[in-house]
Every structure is written in structure tokens, then in C-alpha cells.
């Protein structure tokens, strides 16, 4: 049975299961990660720990989404 609300609430409470970087390391690597993603590279393998951090930290996740949107919008021009 699907329990999306419960799953989301538990996910917020318990965070990602795997290893993750902290907010400072995330900020340091964010620009590199986004360019690797947009170049079609395996950013998660090349910059480990960021994806899990995005899952656990809404603020860093939002900033990742914004940087990706801004840079991809520029590249599309």
C-alpha cells in the first residue's frame, strides 16, 4: 500500500541512509556537481555524498535546484 505522506515524514525525520557530506562541503562542491550533471557525467560517482545530502537538507537541495536551473538556462541560450 502506498503511504506517501508517512514515507516523506519519516524520510525527513530519519534522513538519508547512506553517507553524506555536510552543508559546507556541499557548498564547496555544488558548482562542480552541477556542471558535471549538465555535461551528462555521473556527478554522483564523481562527487560522492552530495546526492544523499540533498535528500537530507532541504536548503541545500533548493540551492542545487536553483543553480542547476540558472546554469542550464544559460547553456540553452
Amino acid at each position, binding site marked *: *500500500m502506498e*503511504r506517501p*505522506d*508517512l*514515507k516523506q*515524514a*519519516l*524520510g*525527513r*525525520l*530519519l*534522513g538519508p*541512509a547512506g553517507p*553524506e557530506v*555536510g*552543508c*559546507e562541503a556541499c*557548498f564547496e*562542491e*555544488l*558548482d*562542480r556537481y*552541477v*556542471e558535471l550533471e*549538465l*555535461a*551528462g557525467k555521473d556527478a554522483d560517482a564523481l562527487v560522492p555524498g552530495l546526492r544523499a545530502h540533498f535528500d*537530507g*537538507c*532541504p*536548503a541545500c537541495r*533548493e*540551492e542545487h535546484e*536553483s*543553480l542547476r*536551473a*540558472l*546554469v*542550464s538556462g*544559460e*547553456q*540553452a541560450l
Partner: protein
Amino acid sequence: MSAPSAATVGIVEPATGLPAGALAAPRLDVDSREWLRPLHSDGAIKDEAVARLHALLLRAARFEVARRRPALPYLRGDELDDIANEAADDALMSVLRRLDDFRGASRFTTWVYKFALLEAAVKLRKRAWQGREVPLEPESWSLFSSAGLEPDAEAEQSELLSTLQSAIAEVLTPHQRRVLVALALNGVPIDVLAERLNTNRGALYKTLHDARRKLRKHLHERGLALEQWLEEN
């Protein structure tokens, strides 16, 4: 959108003839070199480069403000533009202070954008919570209830929630409990909580991370299979 080719991030060439920080870079694209050279110079050339950099940061800050605007209907356009300008000013200071940290792992413009986006996002989160009480106690456990469960699943959920609530109350330190409840249960933005508790995002996230690990360990030790609730492998 198709994946851009390597050409879209500029031609890579050796970094020579640049100041100390940039010289240590393994590679810099042409655009990044053209940004860095005048920023490392003096006088009118530097002033003009700083002005161009500020304009770039302001564009990024306005981009962030525009993305978040639908969630902030009570803010007027001029207030939002003030926030974007303040974010660009603060980001400029950060970028100039950390210019020698840029090593060419991305294009220079991508590197500087993240400073503007961060400043704008933090200011907007704080503005959205201005004057609001930051709840540090659980406001509701209703998020955890799922309607329409079969009796067996309901009993399992009830056991999970009961164990979780007692673990939060008994296993965590008071500081870990406050941080976990505010951030993960009550949805307080991390920058807002950091300001109220006079700390920073990194320290708060470390506390949240430690609290989450404790809870997972506690639930695991009690034989609760989180995989079925979280769909983890």
C-alpha cells in the same frame, strides 16, 4: 534538454600568467581567465570588473527571487528587489574575499552564482519567517498517520510511531531534540533556526545528522524494519 557538449563549458587550456591563486588551478576555461585577470588587477580595470561581477551576481539573485516569488505573495516587488540587491552586495563581498579559492573546478560564473543564490535564498527564508515563532516542540504527529491502512499495517505503524516518539524523547540530547523537531518535524528552515539559536547551518546540520543516526540505530536495535516504510535497500 539534451546534455551539452564539452564545448559549452569553454575550451580548457593551461592557466599561465595569472595571480597565485589561479596559477595553482589545474585548468581554467577562457571565460574564467577573462573574469579573473581584471579582478586581480588594480585601478579602473579592477573597478570595472567588480561592477560587471556585481551585475552578474544581481542577475543570479533576481533569478532566485523570481523562483521563490510565488511562495511569497505578501512581499511587494520593491521589497523583493531590495532583497536581491542586498544578496548581490553580500555575495560580492564573499566572492572577492574568496577569489583565490577558485581553482577552476567549474566555470567562474557557475562558481560565483552559487554565492548569490545562497545569499538570496537565506534572506528570503529569513524574511518569510520574520516575526514568526520558531516551534521547537512537536506541533503534530498527524503527518505520520495514513488513513485506510489494513489492521496489521496500522498496528505496525502504531508500533513504529510509538518507538520513534519515545526515542526522540529519551535517546536524543535536549539540543538534538530541539533541532530535529524544529527542522524535520515542524519545517523550520535551517537558516532561520541557525539565526534564532545563534549558530550556523553547518553546525545545525551536524546536530541533525547525529540525531538521525541515533534514531536509526535505536529503531534498528528494536527490530523495526525501516526498509518497508522508507523503501530503502
